[in-house]
């Protein structure tokens, strides 16, 4: 009872979730234990599959760099991102300009 957080619309109980996580991790471990353990070590079955290519020596050659992450998302929102990056110009006068602009807009709204 004391572990519930009431939000006025429902409640949140962390211990129910912890029990849920416990049960689900037991399930996951059980599923994992069903996997085959009878593969042959030292043969092709043991090797990394890298698109039928040689596996590079250094991890640098096979990692995906961060700037490639969410490429499609950024591409789809290109107009939005272009204007947003343009706003973050890095010029301090612009920073001050936004500050004064916000102050002016808020002043007009409050005083009217």
């Amino acid at each position, binding site marked *: 009872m004391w572990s519930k957080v009431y939000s006025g619309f429902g409640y949140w109980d962390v211990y129910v979730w912890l029990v849920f996580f416990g049960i689900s991790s037991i399930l996951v471990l059980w599923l994992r234990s069903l996997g085959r353990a009878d593969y042959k070590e030292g043969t092709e079955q043991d090797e990394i599959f890298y698109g039928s290519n040689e596996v590079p020596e250094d991890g640098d050659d096979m990692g995906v760099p961060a700037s490639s992450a969410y490429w499609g998302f950024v591409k789809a929102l290109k107009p939005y991102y272009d204007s947003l990056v343009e706003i*973050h*110009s*890095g*010029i301090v006068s612009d920073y001050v300009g936004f500050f004064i602009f916000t102050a002016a807009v808020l002043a007009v709204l409050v005083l009217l």
Partner: protein
Amino acid sequence: MTGNAPFLVVGIIFFLGLYAILFERNLIKIAIGISLLEASANLLLIVLGYRSGGSIPVFTLAGEVKTMVLPTPQALTLTAIVIGLATSALLLSLIMLLYRHYGTLDVREIRRLRG
């Protein structure tokens, strides 16, 4: 009418300072703009505490007077001036370092951090 003239001066100095920060390109001039803003805020405090014909707000020095100017704004202004001194000194030393690193004082060229 003349009683409000100091407030007009406060406004003029304030907007001059803002103009300098917004539209000047030289970092030193931006620093001057900030000093102008500080001056206008200090002047505002002093003017707010002024009572016409008032004397200094120190009992032992004022002598026989009827009105004194308010002491609190003067204490506030002193504090604000000290803070302003610290900020100006730090601002100018940062500008000096920026000039050493970037070789320019143009605000539009000091923008390696963006995006």
